[in-house]
């Protein structure tokens, strides 16, 4: 492997302390993901995929080991710095879309820009991104509940991209979509990869995983194949 690593996991372990006893979701995982990589993470249920995504999305920190994202040690960052990294460095695309129900499609896309610049978008970036993912002006005024699953996922992609993140984390992005729409969404993600984004995809579907350049298989919290 050559290139600059944008994500590094060094002996990362994540243990949950449950009433029934400790549960190790990630067990001494070491791996690197390079800039502009397109990685699929696969594995059966309970293999640690979601835990891995939570770590990569800086929603959680390792119990032990080191996690570097964009050359920053995540555990050493303050809560506010992690929040800003989630906002600026990472674009998160969820299986269930997770759009903000009270905001229109356009406002959902504009929202991260407001978080970053503390003002409404005057550059037209939000509107341009919506158009790029196939959401027209009329549709952009609709609330998430008024959009189809595919449309919602397109809006979610636009939202993930609006702050120009280096990393796109996609957690089963086609899981709630029909196959045709799923492939359309994958085409968009491939295009983003070609434009230079690092795309990390969690999927059960081998057909979807084929879009990736590299597949990481997790079994019982360990990397079985990288």
């Amino acid at each position, binding site marked *: 492997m050559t290139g600059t690593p944008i994500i590094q996991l060094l002996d990362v372990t994540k243990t949950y302390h449950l009433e029934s006893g400790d549960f190790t979701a990630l067990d001494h995982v070491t791996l690197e993901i390079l800039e502009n990589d397109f990685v699929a993470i696969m594995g059966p249920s309970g293999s640690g995929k979601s835990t891995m995504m*939570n770590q990569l*999305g800086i*929603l959680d920190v390792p119990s032990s080991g080191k996690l570097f994202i964009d050359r920053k040690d995540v555990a050493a960052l303050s809560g506010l710095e992690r*929040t800003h990294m989630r906002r600026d460095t990472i674009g998160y695309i969820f299986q269930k879309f997770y759009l903000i129900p009270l905001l229109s499609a356009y406002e959902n896309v504009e929202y991260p820009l407001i978080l970053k610049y503390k003002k409404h978008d005057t550059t037209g970036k939000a509107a341009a991104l919506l158009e790029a993912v196939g959401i027209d002006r009329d549709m952009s005024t609709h609330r998430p509940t008024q959009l189809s699953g595919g449309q919602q996922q397109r809006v979610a992609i636009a939202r993930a991209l609006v702050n120009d993140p280096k990393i796109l984390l996609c957690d089963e992005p086609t899981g709630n979509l029909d196959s045709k729409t799923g492939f359309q969404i994958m085409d968009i993600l491939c295009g983003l990869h070609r434009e230079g984004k690092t795309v990390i995809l969690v999927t059960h579907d081998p057909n979807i995983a084929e879009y990736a350049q590299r597949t990481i298989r997790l079994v019982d919290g360990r990397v079985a194949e990288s």
Partner: protein
Amino acid sequence: MMKGDIFFNLSFRSVRLNFLRSMLAAIGIVIGVVAIASMGMLGTNMQLEVKDQLSSSANTIVISPDAVRMGPPGFTPSSSTTSGVTKSELTKITSVVGTNGTVIPIYTTSGEFTISSVAGRGSIYGIDPSDIGRFLKLNQSYGNGTLDLGVNEVLVGADIAENFNLKVGSRIRIGSFDSTSRPELRIAGVLQARGTVADGVNVDNGIVVNSQWYTEQYGGKDEWSQVNVIVKDTDYISAIETALDQKLNTNAKTPAVRITDATTQLETETSTLSTVTTFIMAIGGISLLVAAVSIFNVMMMSVSERIQEIGILLSIGTEKGEVRRMFMYEAFILGLLGAGIGGAASLVIGYSVVDAMIGTTAYFFEPASILYVPAAMLIGVVVCVISGVYPAWRASNMDPIDALRSE
């Protein structure tokens, strides 16, 4: 600024989405604001009215005999002991006051009277006719009266005139039914209502007679119940009181007279009313406490219903402080809604309460009175915001992973 804030918009939309629930929670604030504002305005209007009435006699010093010291049990007072202001004391008062005011000696007692065989009871004031016009005025709607009282004439107060349906020229008998002597006098005029006064002459339910007739009827000549001094310039009222005190109360241990003015009574009355107002407002404040619990409950429900949304916000880079702000805005909007409606309702309800309880709304729009509306509104909003602190804190400290998982 706030209107363009995305978090304010989110809060506003949340309130709008759950409008009925929000309104029900805000009703508590409405009731609290109305209670505090109305009660505050009622108390202030009472104070203002009393103040206004007492200030009409603010230029008057009242000199009355102090408690007569009889000595130890079994002590027999000498014949010189009097229960009124004596002639020598009156002379001293006149010399102290000089040209700075007018001295009016007044006899007072309470007694019974009969008008057309209907009995009544009230205060009877004996005043020299030349002094009456200095502080009492006629109400000419009862007939063309005069203040220049003859020996067998009386002036009656507004309440007596109204209750007994009197007019100038009517007859009144003074004295109890079983009394052998019940002289009949002619009503020479009806006096204007004075309300609460500080000069001790509460004529509304009283009768004013010629001082000569009074002493002939009741005795006690040159032993006045009180002496009123109407000073020309109120700036000198304290100086005159000090001079009178020094002249009349030569023995500090056994002062001969008590010297008071409207200030003393005003302080007592306003202090009492202020205490009562504060107490009633505190009772009104309890309804705000109940409202606070209701707002707290609604805010907690809002947080519970929006856990996943909070998870989304946190996971895509919303700061904890921004989530907190969003929920604080929601509490603020509820407070503003309740306080706004409560403020408007306070004006209507407060006006009606003041009108019903005091009988006049002349002071309702005075700054001291109307100020209770914005003050109560502010308290309502503050209570709401405080109620929102914990729910907002709880929302902002959620674990985004757990929050996203919730359905």
